């Protein structure tokens, strides 16, 4: 094969591959407006705030954002902490961002401390420290990894 033909073949293969690279990049990054998603995640966190009743012994309930991930179908998974008094809960909530707000699809609570979260493809990978038999409330020590996927608007543990 002449060097010119080799060059053309190589060039055409690169050209072909570049479409695939773009398709893969788009698949991994999505294209929904970042600002719109951020706004709705903020709105979700703000909506977790519930004022206490002055006459009753009750603390405010608040949500604190840890991290969120956007999925390819426009849904967003939010890792956040629910706090009220000395009670806290690590939570994962799936929302669907709409033009005029968001729709909460499903939510789960973790029994322990979420140490790290990651999104691999469309799968959520969570490193969790959960309670061993003799662990005190403060200090879960058992390390575990949880993996979730989204099916039909639900978070499904794999």
């Amino acid at each position, binding site marked *: 094969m002449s060097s010119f033909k080799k060059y053309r073949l190589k060039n*055409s*293969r690169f*050209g*072909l*591959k*570049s*479409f*695939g*690279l*773009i*398709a*893969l990049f*788009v*698949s*991994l990054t999505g*294209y929904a407006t970042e600002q719109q998603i951020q706004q709705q995640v903020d709105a979700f966190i703000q909506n977790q705030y519930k004022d206490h009743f002055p006459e009753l012994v009750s603390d405010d309930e608040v949500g604190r954002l840890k991290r969120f991930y956007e999925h*390819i*179908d*426009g849904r967003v998974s939010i890792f956040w902490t629910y706090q009220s008094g000395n009670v806290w809960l690590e939570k994962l909530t799936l929302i*669907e961002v*709409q*033009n005029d707000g968001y*729709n909460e699809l499903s939510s789960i609570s973790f029994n322990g401390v979420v140490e790290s979260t990651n999104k*691999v*493809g*469309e*799968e959520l990978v969570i490193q969790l420290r959960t309670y061993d038999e003799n662990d005190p409330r403060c200090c879960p020590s058992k390390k575990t990894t949880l993996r979730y*996927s*989204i*099916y*039909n*608007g639900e978070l499904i543990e*794999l």
Partner: protein
Amino acid sequence: MLNKMLLSGAFLFSVTAMADMPAYFNNEIDQEYRAVLKHMDEMMPQTDLELAYLPSFYPFSIFDIHATKLKNDKDKQAFTNFNLGVLGSQFLNVEPQVGTKLPNLVICKKDKCTEQRLKQISSFLAVSEEQILAFKNNISLNLVQLTAPNVYRINNTFYSPTQLLSYTPSKYAGFVPSADYKILSPDTASSLMELSAYSQKLRDLMIKHKVAAVTKDKNDSVNVIFGGLSDNHWGVVLLDKSNIPRKGDRNAIGLEYDVIKPLSETSFYYQTN
């Protein structure tokens, strides 16, 4: 990866040949499909990430291969499932039991999700009349599909910022995408870029309202597909000359209507299955 693909492809074909190889998969179509698989393998970079390529399986995207020349609607529909199985096993990196559940992502049988869909359709229809009419009136436009603002498909050409991949349907099955393609530059493909410019406003609306594809059939009905995977699509059809179909009827690309909900005398929400 190619070896893996050919090996599993060979296994797949040997299994289907012995078991229930579809009647439409004769030797010529078999060869055409193998050529498409080879083309996809050359084009799409390898990744081990699970479901990374899922958007490439959405309606009329690059992995959503349609057998446009098959005469029988059931064969067309069967092929979409077959294709998801073959390409999905190669590119989605999920266990088979997960892969078989993927269509659940786009199936809605409950009131709540139906309401959400109808709301999404309603907000699109409220602002898109002019652009839908422009699409309908342009005889050169039959299909607009959207992956991202700069990555989209018009008819049989896939557009990206740097190049256009224009496909010719395969001879026997009419596969699109096929192994017969031209790589073009946006600078030199003026007529294709005119179609791109013409459909820009429609694509802008599609981005905003998360529409996957808009197609037109021989009766000038416009099918606005909001989502889907394999033979499970959902969206709204805007009729021109035909009547609202019934559950069990098939649409222009051979998919069977599973849910039909009239929205007016000339439009209906649907889900195929």
